[in-house]
């Protein structure tokens, strides 16, 4: 193959690979979203929806909704609360998912598929009844609450409700996000070469050192992928606080939903959504940058252990 044809087919390859997804997302995501971005500069319709774009021959665009967001501190407060919840969710998901993914990755091939399927299987049942199952588990008369409150009572503490609380919200957030941490981690851990670990062991590294200096650094792309797929959606969640949150567990997702439904203030809902999206992307970008700078690439980790 001559270098010119090689270059041409490389460019063709590039278009064939990036083209279709970019095109699809442009048509079915970017364009609709731009409509709503435009909506953030418009006025809400008196009875719902949006006011006409052109009023009396003039273009009705304004920064009213943006001004409201930046002038009323409460929205930023709720947003920060949501970031906290999302961070906590990501952390606990990682802690729970890592052993799961590691176990599956290390299992003999015969069982790997089954073990992986077993992780995702519960999530093919409906979301609502899974949350209702948690309401049963966390209910005031169920075993868990009785045990916990029994222990607290022994220490002279007031009983705490497990249900309709931030605890319940966090537990369910972790629960619904878990497979989205397990699967990316597994996809990464699966390709780790056991020979590396064996070599390290032969050189005297103990289990903790083997994990922390070899496995974990190599698994970082999986950790980041899983964290992104847990953190980012968790920022916008509203159903879980609605169903089993306490009186003050409202998150930014609830506020956004409220703008589109009860308040029928689409421009403001769009503003909140745009801020949320930009912030989520910024946090993800920042985390990736920090990772690249401080932790180096997996290949350098490999060199160190060899």
């Amino acid at each position, binding site marked *: 193959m001559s270098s010119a044809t090689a270059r041409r087919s490389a460019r063709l390859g590039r278009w064939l690979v990036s083209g279709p997804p970019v095109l699809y997302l442009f048509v079915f995501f970017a364009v609709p979203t731009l409509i709503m971005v435009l909506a953030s500069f418009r006025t809400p*319709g*008196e009875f719902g929806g949006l006011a006409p774009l052109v009023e009396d021959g003039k273009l009705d665009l304004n920064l009213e909704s943006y001004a409201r967001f930046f002038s009323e501190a409460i929205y930023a407060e709720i947003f920060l609360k949501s970031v906290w919840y999302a961070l906590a969710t990501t952390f606990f998901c990682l802690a729970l998912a890592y052993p799961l993914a590691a176990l599956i990755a290390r299992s003999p091939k015969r069982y790997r598929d089954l073990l992986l399927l077993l992780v995702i299987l519960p999530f093919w049942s409906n979301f609502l009844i899974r949350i*209702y199952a948690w309401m049963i588990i966390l209910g*005031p008369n169920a075993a868990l609450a009785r045990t916990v409150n029994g222990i607290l009572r022994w220490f002279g503490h007031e009983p705490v409700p497990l249900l309709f609380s931030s605890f319940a919200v966090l537990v369910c957030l972790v629960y619904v996000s878990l497979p989205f941490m397990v699967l990316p981690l597994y996809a990464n851990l699966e390709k780790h070469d056991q020979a590396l670990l064996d070599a390290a062991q032969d050189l005297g590294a103990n289990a903790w050192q083997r994990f922390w200096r070899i496995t974990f650094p190599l698994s970082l792309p999986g950790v980041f992928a899983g964290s992104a797929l847990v953190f980012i959606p968790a920022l916008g969640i509203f159903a879980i606080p609605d169903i089993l949150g306490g009186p003050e567990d409202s998150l930014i997702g609830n506020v956004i939903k409220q703008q*589109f439904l*009860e308040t*029928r203030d689409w421009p*403001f809902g769009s503003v909140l959504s745009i801020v949320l999206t930009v912030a989520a992307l910024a946090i993800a970008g920042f985390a990736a940058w920090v990772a690249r700078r401080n932790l180096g690439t997996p290949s350098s980790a490999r060199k160190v252990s060899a």
Partner: protein
Amino acid sequence: MKKLLWLSAAFAVCALFAAPVFAKDEFHLYNWNNYIAPETVKRFEDFCKCTVVQTYYSSNEELLAKLAAGAKGYDMLVPTTNAVDALIKGKRLQPLDHSQLPNLKNIDPRYLNTPFDPGNKYSVPYAMSTTIIGYNDVKMKELGLPTDTWAVIFEPKYLEKVKGRITVLDDENELFAAALKYLGYSVNDVDEKHWKEAQALINKAKPYWAAFNASSYIKELTVGNIWLVHGYSNDIFQANLDAQAAKRPFHLVQGMPKEGAVLAVDNMVIPKDAPRPDLALKFMNFMLEGKNSSELTNLIGSGNPNLDAVKYIKPEILKNPAIFPTKEVAARLEQLKDLTVAQRRLRSRMWTEIKAGH
């Protein structure tokens, strides 16, 4: 492997495009779930020789949002008062041809000619409910709490006894309405000062409430985890039926507060771009017949504005003042009006402050 992948993909795509192409007339009803008795639907299908295609929404707001974004294809909607108000003002409904609705005379005149739809040009009452107090009778007696006033939901001196065992509706309009009523104002009061008073009242009571909940509170009430709720009369009725079926040692009772409450009337309306308004009118007239209308009431304990239905409704439901309010009680009930943009924004901010912990 490739062959299998292509095969399954092809199958799935075919399944998608193989939309049933039936020649029969279709009547698209967009309704609340379980808001029409199955027998009634069957009888209507036989009567009109058409198929009833039901899709569901679970809140007025969802319905309004979907319509505002342009969804069409529905022949009939069943929105509640304030949503009907918004739809009429937003010019999304078509006027009704009263000559095709001879059964309209069955409706109690009390529920006709509302301020938002004089002459019933666009809407016809379907069913109703009140938003009241629901309680566990054994627990309330034990704790010595009153059950006929909003005070039991808002006053800390009562709330202390039910701390963590009471929920209120997660609906800014309903909760503000209850607070305003308790303070002696109308549910449609739009004075910002009064709203601030209501907000303060709510904030004082909030620490004692288990949750703001409009979806899962009823089952918690039924199993006895929650003892007192701010909820809809139909739901509490149903909860009691379930509690009795499970042989629980208590009854769930509806308490009508003496200060008054919100009356929610669901109406049948026809969207402007309905494909089959003729079928919709047929359905409307059909549902205005006493027998057909009564079936829903007997099923879920909903209020019924149809005078002709009275003779078909179970007596125990007829006697219930929360479902069929007496004249004195009815005088204290109010229907919610829709708010302007500025008012909605203000209330929304107050609601956000309440729910964020301010």
